């Protein structure tokens, strides 16, 4: 039983990470209207930028992380404006396929600059805390903390600021929003910055709790897709719920099936949701 609870606990951590990794992706889906496969690669960019500044240049990890996140945010914005904006009229399918090309380009660049091999950040070893027979490390708690802070901040932003409301209006009905005078262009820019920045944050979290290799970003995409699809087109809360469900399901599954199949849970989620309830938890049919 304790073992089960331990897996459940790590599942919450995994889920928190997935929430961070997926909110940005969901955001792009709702506002820009397509599934951006390259989103996962931004995690790699952020993780390795942070690593580069921290390990190669000796920066303090927090400074490196902030720089990494900011860089990733602006990279995402640049790509959004240069690559995706000009072809938006071609439809979500073409954008999806194009994002594969973008993923290749980003992934290849990271590969070329970083090379193969395992990398870790220059940070103190994790400290484990025990309670009620369960273990958790300080870094794992940081991941959960950031997930809470980020979702909280985002919820405030979407509900209380005019830009946030503009974003919600556009994701509900772009034509109507544009005709009501909402500045679609600058809203789009803010969206790219926020979603790429969140990807950056997720990448930093990845660097903190996991060891880095250049293919790590690609492995995340299916899990991100699983969470995004389970959440559906709806609210932030759906992403939170979906992230936790997938995270816990993946980690708890080790109780019953061999660990090698852990990623399979994500795939199974994608398939089952699309077959039986394509609108996801949020329940709204696609626009």
């Amino acid at each position: 039983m304790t073992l089960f609870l331990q897996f459940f606990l790590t599942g919450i951590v995994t889920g928190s990470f997935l929430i961070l990794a997926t909110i940005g992706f969901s955001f792009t889906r709702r506002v820009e209207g397509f599934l951006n496969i390259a989103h996962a690669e931004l995690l790699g960019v952020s993780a390795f930028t942070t690593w580069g500044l921290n390990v190669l240049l000796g920066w303090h990890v927090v400074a490196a992380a902030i720089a990494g996140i900011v860089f990733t945010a602006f990279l995402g914005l640049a790509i959004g404006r240069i690559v995706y904006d000009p072809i938006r009229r071609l439809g979500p399918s073409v954008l999806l396929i194009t994002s594969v090309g973008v993923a290749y380009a980003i992934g290849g660049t990271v590969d070329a600059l970083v090379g193969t091999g395992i990398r870790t950040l220059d940070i103190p070893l994790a400290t484990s805390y025990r309670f009620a027979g369960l273990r958790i490390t300080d870094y794992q708690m940081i991941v959960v903390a950031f997930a809470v802070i980020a979702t909280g901040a985002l919820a405030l932003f979407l509900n209380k600021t005019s830009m946030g409301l503009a974003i919600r209006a556009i994701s509900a009905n772009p034509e109507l929003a544009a005709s009501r005078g909402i500045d679609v262009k600058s809203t789009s820019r803010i969206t790219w910055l926020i979603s790429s920045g969140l990807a950056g944050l997720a990448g930093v979290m990845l660097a903190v709790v996991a060891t880095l290799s250049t293919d790590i970003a690609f492995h995340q995409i299916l899990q991100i897709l699983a969470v995004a699809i389970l959440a559906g087109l709806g609210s932030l809360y759906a992403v939170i719920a979906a992230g936790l469900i997938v995270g816990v399901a993946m980690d708890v599954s080790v109780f019953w099936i061999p660990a090698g199949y852990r990623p399979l849970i994500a795939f199974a989620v994608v398939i089952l949701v699309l077959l039986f309830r394509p609108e996801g938890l949020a329940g709204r049919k696609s626009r």
Partner: protein
Amino acid sequence: MTFSSLILTTLTFGAMFSVLTLSLNLQYARGGMINFGTVAYFASGAYAYAIFTQDPPSGLDQYAFGLGLPWYVGFLAAGVASLLFALITGWPTLRLRGEYLALTTFAFAEVLHSFLLNERRIGNGSVGLSNVERPDPALIGVNDMLAYAIAAVALMLMTAFFFHRLLNSPFGRTVDAVHDDETAAQAIGKDGARIRLQVFVLSAIPIGFAGALYAMITTLVAPAMFTAELTFFVWIALALGGQKTILGAILGTLALVFFQEAVGAIPFESVRAAQIAASVEEVVTGILFIIVLRWQPWERFSRRTKA
């Protein structure tokens, strides 16, 4: 690698992968289906071939199945395996459109990959099956590389021929009609989902055969050989060649294979340099893909006007 062997390798693998590109052409350009799981049909064929022709397990072997049958039985089994996989994964999913179909096909391919990687009883897990049985051209006095190059080209030509025949027919008219306007096609009694399934399953069969050929050429099947990278490679080849024509699909594939083989053939001074070259290749391919998609799609990605 000498220039002539570079040409031969390009021809062999180019022709073989062209079969995949042709299938994608059929599925996407004519059928309107986005298949991001192409590698899975290829892997099904390759593994089926290997399992059917491999001698039964003995001693320390971890795999459980090996039927020890002749190569032509294995070859047929490869086509059937691919057909079955397409049928099982296609039937529930083809009613999904566009991006969602892309995701489910991708997910199914990853499921297969995970399965092959983890189940030791099927083909030794991550280690794979080596020393795969294959017909030996030396027996009829033909150079090995040449013989398989000819086999690959033959498979490609036959696939092109059958696809052409499939589409220049009443069935082809129906496929185009359903793709153009499914509601209007329903008004004349055409079942879009059924048509798409037929296209999907039929186009998967040659991919299975190509997989068998791949196993014969490399005498090895292992999960690492069948990753999503291959699926996207074929997509990029499709885009480069333009999808309007069968010839385009073939040329695009040959060009991309040549590019990759040529880069691979450059003698680099260090492992690191070779890695960088491979990465740069990845970047260039990605950028090329983006460029082609931006400036070609309305011409190439939708077969709208017929001359």
